[in-house]
């Protein structure tokens, strides 16, 4: 069953057509061509698909797309407004991205944290990002990057 879906996607109003069973992740990657959002498990276990839905971090692999009708969705493509977001600058500087596959989800979860808590402690960063698995960095450089972006380092 095809259905229509309206989103405010990275600030732009878009109309998309999707299957009734599509997840938001599928619609973003295949319908909207935004491949920056990644998939690591399709079961809500790894955090790679994290996007912001109405400002809150959400696992797009678990969200039925039609439930997001009318919502504002921000993906990694909408993070920096033509320039790198401070989080992206800090990830580049600290080596917070090695293979980079977790980075889009990690960045969006970090943005949600900083929107809520502009100057987090290291433990607050770890807690906020605990649902985002990274297999390369050992996390230390990611925490340093988020603290740096927040001016807390």
């Amino acid at each position, binding site marked *: 069953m095809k259905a229509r879906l309206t989103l405010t996607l990275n600030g732009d109003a878009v109309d998309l057509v999707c299957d009734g069973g599509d997840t938001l992740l599928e619609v973003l990657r295949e319908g909207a061509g935004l491949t920056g959002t990644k*998939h690591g498990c399709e079961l809500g276990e790894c955090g790679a698909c994290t996007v912001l839905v109405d400002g809150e971090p959400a696992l797009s692999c678990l969200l039925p797309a039609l439930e997001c009708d009318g919502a504002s969705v921000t993906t990694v493509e909408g993070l920096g407004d033509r320039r790198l977001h401070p989080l992206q600058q800090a990830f580049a500087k600290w080596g917070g991205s090695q293979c*980079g596959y977790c980075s889009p989800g990690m960045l969006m979860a970090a943005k949600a944290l900083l929107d809520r808590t502009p100057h987090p402690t290291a433990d607050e*960063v770890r807690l906020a990002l605990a649902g985002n698995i990274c297999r390369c960095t050992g996390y230390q450089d990611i925490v340093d990057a988020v603290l740096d972006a927040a001016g807390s380092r």
Partner: protein
Amino acid sequence: MSGRGHNLPPTGVIGAERPRIDARVRATGQLHYADDLSLPRMLHCRLLRSPHPHARILSIDTRAADGLDGVELILTGEAFPVPYGILPISQDEHALARGKVRYVGEPVVAVIARDERTAQAGVDAVVVQWDVLPPVRDAIDGVGPLEHPLYGEPGTDSVHKAVSFDFGDVDGGFADADRVYDDCFDYAGNTHLALEQHASLAAVTEHGRLTLWSSTQVPHYVHKALAKVLELPEAELRVVAIPNGGGFGGKSDIFHHEMVVAKAAWMLGRPVKIALRREEVFQCHRGRHPVQLRLRTGVKEDGSITAMHLQTLVDGGGAGSYGVASTYYTGSLQTVTYEIPTYRFQGCRVFTNKAPCGPKRGHGTPQPRFGLEIQLDKIADDLGIDPAELRLRIVEHDGAITANWMRVVTIGLADCIKQVVKSSGWNDKHRKLPRGRGVGIACSSYLSGAGLPIQWNKMPHSAVQIRVDRSGLVTAYCGATEIGQGSDDVLASCVAEVLGLRSTDVRVVTGDTDLCPVDLGSYSSRVTLMMGNAAVDAAVHARNAIAEALAGVRGVPADQVRFFGGRVLLPDGDLSFAAAVKLAEVAAGPIGSVGWYTPPKPVARYKGGGVGPTPTYSYTAAVVEVDVDEDTGFIDVPKIWIAHDIGRALNATLARNQVIGSVYMGLGEALMEEQAMRRGRPSGHGAWVHRGPSMLDYKSPTHLDMPPVHVDLIERPDPEGPFGAKEVGQGPLLPIMPALANALYDAVGVRAHEVPITPDKVLKALARQRAGKDSTFGDRPFPDGVPWPESVRVPTPADGGDGRAAEAGDYAPGQGSKA
């Protein structure tokens, strides 16, 4: 051939801390991985995988699937008569199973359709009739005659490879010992869990040639396998390694799905893509082998080692993969850290009905290292020697050739040990912390690239081509594969350093068999040393070509032309690099160059001595601190200190990232990660399915589990490495598991001889301890009945040997030196 770049004037790139050249694109989500690719008219592939660990395929009925709207092609094993395998001696896999299946998840049928859902519906509609066979569950189950071995005739065993070596007079060495330690260890298998699931896209591209884009660490070997399986000339095939979303060894084999989509695209003339689901990645596996170990070591009262005897029983899973190499690797690097004058190694790999094991970060060496470093801790304890001091007493030295003929070039291990002792406050902590808290130390070593290629030949292991455009753009081409570790940055920075540019001034084109000269791939920690040396070689040639052309134009000696800061400096003034290139092109034509690297010939000349040699070994020492909750068995790790002998850090930021990432992965292996199998339904096959092929059930450390890591890089340039560099991506993983086990003992007096060291095991051990019983766990006896072959006797350097095995009767142990 030795390392390049040592005598060049420094230009400020090498050694600095700096963001990698691709840091920005990685932080923006705009780096494309294999599943991010799509092409017009692209079809999708799904695979029917075996639900049984061991079964004969009686029939495959694809009629219902064929009739589905949108299904374009169905393939079975009939389409793939030609076998393949990463090792020339283990050509035992088919893209789709023929006749029987050997593990849960082995691909049997491929359905190619207009979208993934239709392809999956096709897979679901295929009916396979199976004759379920009893599985070989563990290595020891497969060593005797079997009615149904995985390979071979009924009545044969399931042993894949068994080897025995005596290096020197081992029995004499044990006779000389004051004490002999004899311990068994049990190392669980675990998997890479790269966050990106494997994906591949194949298409017939320009001029009717077939191209495969894949998340692979080894495009060169995939290229060769593809040619073999599709029966097409290599020159008509192109393999492009797309930047991997993590590899860790998990994408360094040749995979069924790569062969399948290539064949389908070739048959249909349309692009075909596959993206594996997480469960399928667990089934592809090629991860850490489960290994049972027995380690006997003879020592003098002063701690010096007189003899070592290591036995490994290696659970291989259902395919050969890298397994012959893995078997040798369980023994070969045991000798390169400490002085071990005589050494007996016996290794046996057995096929079992489980997902195939292969190379994971450390490939075959973390398991015996775990045993050795724990046993040293026991020896130190018994002899009343501090464990750090014991290691310092017996550490190998620069230029050593070990009993098994491994050549040590530089060894910074003593410096590593001293550094972690100092940084961790070891002397104030070991045996001095209150019960429940403890510290442990362990050391390790790893290759800076395998000394021999997987498919033996005499050609270079790595080659780099450089093109210098008149715009001033420098492009470096190399078959090396960026898997996240930063190989593109190493390539750019080696070239930039020589040409006096910034690393970001150099564009790199990598991992493409059409465009790039061969590099063997991202495995065995070979890229920095081998590609780095090739890159410096190529860059020096390009630099000399520019310098000679300018020298001719300006009438100055070529050796007075210098390259620095993006400019070319001449005695009579300086030019921008681009202006210099233009002048050079006028005088000498377009500037281009090639460079290459072939490792030194190993000194080991016995059969089997090809596994273990490397241009130079890296060394690591680590101290792990633990805080054990005796009510829950939970181990908290407050901090880890690690020092790594890297020779020279080409990019200090990347090097530290690699060390911390290795520590993280080692901590996961130590505490929680396990490719665990469980008994299936008795009504089915009765045995051996994955306990939880998902990221929730396969526990790996999160942000909350990861302690701070204090990293020290020990930099003493090694003559074999580019600018002195050694590897950093694998070695620092190895000491973490034994250091943690040793810390557990320091904290609560419990010896862990297995990983993962989970709270339930710790709790049981503490209960046994309270009951006054032996609290050691994981030390089940090494099984009898392993069919060891007759030992190959190899005289050691001290015996006056020449690296070859002795002819039968030519070498009598105990004769001493022949020299």
